[in-house]
């Protein structure tokens, strides 16, 4: 069974930090359509702090995810701190001290992250939030795994579902968060949190795949 050596995979978090920072303006712009236009600012603030806290040499992935979670909890507040903090905190906890990440562990990690977000945020898929990217991504990963597909393919399915999930928010009415102010008028644009979450899941998928060893 193929897997990722977790001790060598801390760089996945660095790649997430870079992805968020590269999309800072774009995420704020998306949030500006029906939110208050600060999602990129908020995310970039927390992720940049995490990047600075990772240290050199990079810690193993579980530790790196915990550093990221702590930076979000301590650095950004609002809703994103607890939501993404819970996501990465639950992921880190699931990995624990495992040496290698294989497909089943990855599936459990994603599922734990999803549950962490749902527990703290009390939103549901369909509310036009980051869950609409995260939940289908988890489901797609599990489905691919159940169908016996190799780990790399499970990751690709997961990333594709995250993107599809993000796009599905375009036709939704926001039921939580700032955009819920707009009711029917919140339809027609994708959700900012779903966009950042998709970006994060794509980065995780690509980062893990390239670190896959036989």
């Amino acid at each position, binding site marked *: 069974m193929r897997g990722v050596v977790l001790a060598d995979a801390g760089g996945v978090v660095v790649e997430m930090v870079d992805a968020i920072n590269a999309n800072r303006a774009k995420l704020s712009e998306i949030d*500006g359509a029906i*939110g*208050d*236009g*600060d999602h990129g*600012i*908020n995310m970039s603030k927390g992720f940049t702090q995490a990047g600075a806290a990772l240290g050199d040499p990079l810690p193993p992935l579980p530790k790196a995810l915990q550093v990221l979670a702590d930076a979000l*909890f*301590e*650095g*950004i*507040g*609002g*809703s994103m*701190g*607890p*939501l993404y*903090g819970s996501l990465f905190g639950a992921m880190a906890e699931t990995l624990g001290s495992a040496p290698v990440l294989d497909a089943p562990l990855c599936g459990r990690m994603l599922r734990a992250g999803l549950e962490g977000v749902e527990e*703290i*945020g009390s939103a549901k898929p369909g509310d036009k939030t980051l869950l609409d990217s995260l939940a289908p991504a988890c489901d797609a990963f599990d489905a691919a795994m159940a169908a016996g597909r190799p780990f790399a393919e499970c990751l690709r399915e997961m990333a594709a579902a995250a993107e599809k999930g993000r796009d599905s928010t375009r036709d939704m009415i926001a039921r*939580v*968060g*700032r955009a819920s*102010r*707009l*009711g029917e008028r919140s339809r027609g644009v994708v959700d900012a949190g779903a966009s950042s979450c998709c970006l994060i899941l794509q980065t995780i998928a690509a980062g893990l795949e390239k670190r896959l060893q036989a």
Partner: protein
Amino acid sequence: MNRIINNPDLVVEDAVRGYLKAHADLVAPTGNPRVIRHHLAPRQGKVGVVTGGGSGHEPAFLGYVGDGILDSVAIGEIFSSPTAKSFHDAFVAADGGRGVACLYGNYAGDNMNVKLAVKQASAHGLVVKTVVANDDVPSAPVAERAKRRGVAGEVLMWKVGGARAAEGADLEQVIASAQKAIDSTRSIGIGLSACTIPAVGKPNFSIDNGMMEVGIGHHGEPGVKVSAICPASEMADLMLEHVLPDLPFAAGDDLAVLVSGLGATPIMELYILYDRISEVLGGKGMKVRHPFIGNYFTSLEMMGVTLTIMRLDAELDRLVAAPARSLGLTKVVS
């Protein structure tokens, strides 16, 4: 955007620094730049009274740290909850060994961050109990009161909780009084113009000229209706029609009434509104024992006003009347 700021991303840091410089006789810094405390906190043997919330509502939240009110405050970005860590550090800054009452407002971010902070505090043996303000009537039907936002009623909740703690009450008692305070309190806002978060640079909602948004929230959350602006006396009547039946308030009630500007509304207009409010309440056989008129809980430079009414029993009356000294609210016993 004509504003008095340096770096728009650092408005909170810059303002808190100025606040600490100006009011060293009242407040002091902590190790966390997003937490300020009463200059004597933690006071041994006293229940700590804490709140926290987004910035841009000044004098809320930090302006209510003082004698007879709050011991510490966690400070968030503009219109954004403080971090769980800041709430936690505020608990520690207020803890005088008899536990901490965290009295805050019902917003998604605050709920999440307080929950995490309380868990963290209890992990090292610090007992924190919470009261969540949900006084904003238009934000949900009465059957779903738990969903309602906390607005300017928080000020009265802090006043009551702070006064109870100053009397030497224990944590259960402080929590019970603060809970009673907010359960006896109802609010409504009317928005007349939008506001701009400096880091964003443009308003993220709008109210047209000549229109008003009835039931607006403190961050521009949607109200129950947008309609043409009407005379102040009709605004007063409209606000009372929402607020009075909700508790319900009734003839014979003694009240505390708080009319707060949202930021840019001239103070004289608050008194024009209050003139009518006081008349109507009197006409219904209620008595305003404690009126508070001014900018108690604002939303940057929004125009508009909030009305908050609390029904007093003997205990609430005593606690609202108790002496207090803070930037936002001072009661001198004369």
